[in-house]
């Protein structure tokens, strides 16, 4: 049976899993969990994932959450080779650091900013948020220096996580092409991947959600 993905396509981490699955040629059974209707807080969902986040994967009884853990699991289990998540210890350590940069820095800020708009009614970014976003973009720019992809010269799941978050973040705070040409070129490179389009519908949903919050 196809693994089940509890998801909502507005979420960038969900979209990183969609990219990974598409890259692997893996079919997922998608089950929508509407966060706005608090479907993530039902007893059934909490039993599955006490952290009540999406994406959550149920692979025939193996339950995994956190998009980074899900993507690592999917590549290891279904990948024909290890290119998306190299087994070589040193290469893997670099990918892992980029994945933790994504969860600890990039997505943390995105989540914090979206929440301040959604639940505190903010209509613009604070100075503090802008400063941190600039620092985050600057770090990503340095990771991409001399490389095609964020963890080296091959695309990995670190690119999937970061590109879905950054393309969402850039709608809130644009990536300046003069300051961050590496990031702009990397996004263009990602757009050229044959499976990239699988995240575009969700990106549009995110854009729409954000425009609604600004009203």
């Amino acid at each position, binding site marked *: 049976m196809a693994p089940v993905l509890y998801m909502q396509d507005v979420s960038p981490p969900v979209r990183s899993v969609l990219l990974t699955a598409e890259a692997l040629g893996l079919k997922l059974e998608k089950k929508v969990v509407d966060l706005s209707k608090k479907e993530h807080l039902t007893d059934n969902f909490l039993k599955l994932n006490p952290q009540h986040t999406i994406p959550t994967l149920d692979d025939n009884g193996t339950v*995994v959450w956190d998009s*980074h853990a899900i993507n690592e699991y999917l590549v290891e*289990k279904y990948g024909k080779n290890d290119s998306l998540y190299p087994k070589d*210890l040193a290469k893997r350590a670099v990918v892992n650091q980029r994945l933790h940069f994504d969860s600890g820095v990039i997505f943390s800020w995105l989540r914090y900013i979206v929440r301040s708009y959604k639940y505190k009614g903010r209509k613009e970014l604070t100075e503090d948020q802008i400063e941190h976003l600039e620092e985050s973009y600057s770090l990503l720019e340095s990771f991409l220096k001399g490389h095609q992809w964020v963890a080296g010269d091959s695309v990995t799941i670190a690119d999937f996580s970061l590109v879905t978050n950054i393309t969402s973040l850039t709608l809130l705070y644009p990536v300046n092409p003069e300051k961050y040409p590496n990031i702009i070129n990397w996004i263009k490179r990602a757009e050229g991947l044959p499976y990239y389009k699988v995240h575009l519908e969700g990106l549009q949903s995110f854009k729409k959600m954000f425009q609604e919050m600004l009203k």
Partner: protein
Amino acid sequence: MAPTLYMIPPSPPVRSVLMTAKALGLTLNEKIINFPAGEHLQPEYLKLNPQHTVPTLVDDDGFAVWDSNAINPYLIGKYAKDDSLYPQDLQKRAIVDQRLHFNGSVAFGAVAGIVRCILYEGKTCLDDNDKTRVEQVYAFLEAFLDDGKPWMAGDCLTVADYNLYATVSAGDVLVPIDGQKYPKVATWFDKVGNLPEAEATKKGLAIFESLISSKLQ
């Protein structure tokens, strides 16, 4: 030659690397980074780690990696006698990986955010918001432990226990773990704290405690 660890003793992520290294019987060459003097922003350090954080590990072949959640699995993969601390089994590993990402983003995010305000922005006491943030971490960990398994990622001690212990021990300085509200977390915390490898974290934790208490009123 021993791998080099760029560090400062009170940092929770640094302490998790010290704990992991001790568990592996691995000697690290510890080099303290002088943050007040801006040593982390010097070109030599930025070459190793453009994110200019600690810990940063430089292995004996010159390979550099940072972020304790990436360093520790690397050390285990390279130096451990078996895979128990970071299982090869996909299901078990996925749980450990999720715990590590929870540690890096949610748990450490909460603790570091408050510590930054105390050390650099003149915060002298914790408000309700701060307490809620840390307690939310404890509440999630209590839920993760709800399956009755002894360790944070299941039946066996793993790197998830080390990394979360290091973060939670700092959290506990800010907002002590309420054993009535979070009995499983309290039990787990004591258990991990009594492991021989936890000894490697105690000196840094004492420095952390002293730093924080000197700033709080």
